């Protein structure tokens, strides 16, 4: 896939947390590329800088040093307003703890996105995709963790984003439910062609990726391409 279109590119990307006494290099001079349509898995131990990278790619956080491009647009040169615009138009997020708004139903949570997106699906259609139309009018508190995460995915894909960034989407789920969620992600990636990045510290999940990026101490240690991908349903942990 090396000659495919590049969606994200970083050059010499660093993020330093200055906590007063010590400087923590959450990211240290990272150079990488992510390609259109690929499903990449970011693998690495806790604290290795995966979330930090994802946040910067998604325009949630600022880099300390280095540059980041989304296609031909340089994210590191955008101001706050520009980053907001970028997130609104191009990125879908899925978080470990689902982050649904508790006072809104499943449909309304999806509507939060469709209200502001340029070319969204109908909320019902998005929920249909994750198999939750029948639970549309339930509040988060009335749903299981897996269901909540699927609502979060519906919310993320409803705007038809170019990239889907998932930070440990199965981290809070048991394995059976986690597999269901991963399958939804695979489906979205295949059917909509959305470039997808999935962070995990669970090595088994790497098997479903096109590409696996290994992180260690704020650096991209190495990457490998899967010649044979395994469907989530056949993974277990």
């Amino acid at each position: 896939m090396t000659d495919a279109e590049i969606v994200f590119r970083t050059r010499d990307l660093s993020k330093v947390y200055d906590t007063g006494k010590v400087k923590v290099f959450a990211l240290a001079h990272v150079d990488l590329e992510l390609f259109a349509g690929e499903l990449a898995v970011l693998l690495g131990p806790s604290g290795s800088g995966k979330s930090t990278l994802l946040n910067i790619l998604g325009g949630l956080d600022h880099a300390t040093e280095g540059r980041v491009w989304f296609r031909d647009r340089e994210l590191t040169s955008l101001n706050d307003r520009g980053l907001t615009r970028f997130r609104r138009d191009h990125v879908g997020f899925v978080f470990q703890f689902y982050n649904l708004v508790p006072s809104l139903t499943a449909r309304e949570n999806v509507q939060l996105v469709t209200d502001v997106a340029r070319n969204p699906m109908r909320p019902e259609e998005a929920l249909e995709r994750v198999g939750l139309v029948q639970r549309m009018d339930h509040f988060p508190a009335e749903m299981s963790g897996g269901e909540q995460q699927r609502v979060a995915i519906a919310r993320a894909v409803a705007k038809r984003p170019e990239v889907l960034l998932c930070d440990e989407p199965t981290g809070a789920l048991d394995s059976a439910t986690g597999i269901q969620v991963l399958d939804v992600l695979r489906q979205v990636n295949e059917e909509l062609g959305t470039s997808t990045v999935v962070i995990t510290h669970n090595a088994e999940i790497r098997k479903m990726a096109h590409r696996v990026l290994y992180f260690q101490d704020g650096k991209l240690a190495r990457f490998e391409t899967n010649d044979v991908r395994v469907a989530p349903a056949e993974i277990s942990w």
Partner: protein
Amino acid sequence: MSALDIKLLRDFRRLWAQSLAIALVMAAGVAVLLMSFGMSKALDETRDTYYERNRFADIFVDARSVPKSLLATVRGIEGVAAAEARVTTHATLDIEGKAQATVAFVTSLPEGGNPLLNVPILRLGDWPDPNASDQVALNEPFAIANNLWPGDRFAINLNGTKRTLAVTGWLLSPEFVYTIGPGSLIPDDEDYGILWMPERALAAALDRTGAFDNLAVKLRPGFSAKPVMDELDTLLEPYGNWGAIDRSEQTSNAFIDGEITQLQTLAYILPPVFLGIAVFLVNMVMGRLVRLERTEIGLLKALGYGNMAICVHYLLLSGLIAGAGVMLGWAVGSWLSYGLAKLYANFFKFPYLIYNISWNTYLISGLLGLGAATAGALRAALSAARLSPATAMSPPAPPHFKRSLLDRLLAALRISQPSMMILRSLIRWPFRAAMSVLGMALAVSILVASNFFPDALDVIIDSAFHQSNRQHAVLFFNEALPESALQDSRRLPGVLQAEGQQYLTAVLRNEHREKRVVVEARRPGLDLSRVVDDSGKPVDAPPGGIMLARRLAAQLDVGVGDLVEAEFRGNRHGTFTLPVTGLVTQYFGLGAYLDQETADRMFQQSPQVSVVNVTIDAAQEEAFQAQLKELPMLAGSAMLVENREGFQETISQNILITTTIYTVLGVLITVGVAYNAARIQLSERARELASLRILGFTRGEVGYILVGEILLLALIAQPVGWWIGWGVARLMAESFTSDLYAIPLVMKPATFTQASLVVLAAAAASVLLVRRKLDQMNLVSVMKTRE
């Protein structure tokens, strides 16, 4: 509706109890603002319209038997638009079936027909026929109080001759919106009336044909009163001129002025307190909400919502609270102010009430409410907008408790862990603790400041009725009489004691300061009408000088030993320079006192009396009253016993109303502060408290942490509230003090205790309501939720 708006409405509904507590405080501010502004405006406009439509005069002069030919000269004075001469007198009436002698002020209706100035409104029946000698119109409240209808008759003693008059109709006049009889301290419609008689008949009865006693003058627009008054004074000098007065000294108008000022004072003192507390409450609640919704805010930002959208989202929530408060305030304020304005219109005798609170007042009060909410929410809303999305979604670091010197002190004191938690939290959030204290202190202060009134009135009543005015009745004569009149009074049936005084009118001056007052000339040792000093001892006016009420001395800026110029007017003339020989504290009027012998020497007169104070044997009161009706020179009489009862009755009714209103206001504030503070405590400490329960602490022990902190703050608020309340009471006493009366600053321990009990009880009730939620807390689910 957008999903964000749905969230807004759901949040508002979820926070209903806290929102309501805030909305009520805000509503109180808006309602008081609307009420006091609305009422003072209604009163002001009603009065202005009434004065305008009925041509209320600008200047009034009392004199005696001025030839009518002078009227042309008066009309020629520069700035005079119109002048009207009236024959006037005080007289006693004998109404069938009524034992008491009734006093009336009789004034003439011009020969040519209707009056030009101070035009009365005909309310019922007809005007008297200008040529009739036995017809009279009455002011409406007096007629109603005495059940006198057109066609009814009663007897009047005019110039020593008793005659019968027939009532033709009822009138209301801008000159007598508020009526108070000579010697009376409160209005009494039953025993003091205004009578209008045709000039021809009245002048004939009083030997005033071709002459007048009172002049009403209307100025041309743009001319000031002072030069005209000076010219009138000079012109009428030979006729026992009592001195020209402008509207500010006209009794009826002065009382209405005083009332309007009081209402305006309330409008400036109270609403800022309520709105200030609302600012703090919104600040506290919104601050907590934003902290609670950190991750949601981060999420919204991740989804592409801009800073502005987030900021507006939280401002709108505070806007909804303000909206509820403002609407409630408008509703209650409109209702209260309309009701009270009607009450006022009734108390003052206005023929109608012009009540239209302008949309301005609504707009301004609404904007103030909204502004308060926005000011309160702004900090939280901005911090929400500023949250970086990445950090918002990671859990916040636990608050940093520093080990301070204070901590080591607390440790040394071996305080229990729960108590320690309370104290730490106070040290951790000193601003919030201080504001909660201030809020509850303001609640205490409002109660202290309103409770002090009854105590002040007790002092006034005791001073006016028990110390100073111990007579049962006061008899007034139309002119000063030789002291032999005193002997005559003693011979009236049932009279036990009789003492005389001479009333003189004078303008007192010190440089550019001057004041028109009644000066009482008194013999030493009078026992019925006494002048009492601060220690309660009766004092006499020292010979050779003048003794003044403290407020009068302050207005003239003189002290003991200083000289004042006294220009006497009316039936005794002359200008004298007198040393101030003493000062006394007085609550009613601006008293000035001369020794009788000093006065006799000044005016080269034999001793005179114009007022006789008597005590009477209650068993013979009827005979006494019957005889009074026959006294030729009597201008009036006031039964002080009835005054006392009337005064206390009016006052205690008013006090019940105001005390209720202020208690409700104080409770609203306390509940607003205590309930919200407790809810926020509970929300912030839910995990901590649940952990303690899991560790084996009892409900009581855990509840103590929650209840204890708020109640500790409530206790600290008490002395602060007493202190502020004392200040507010002083401010109110000062601003309510006018020429007519003074409010003493009387602060009794009971005032403070009562205020504290109300506030502590309201605080305890609010906190216990929240404690019930703590008891119902599901330990497992609390521990499971992420902060």
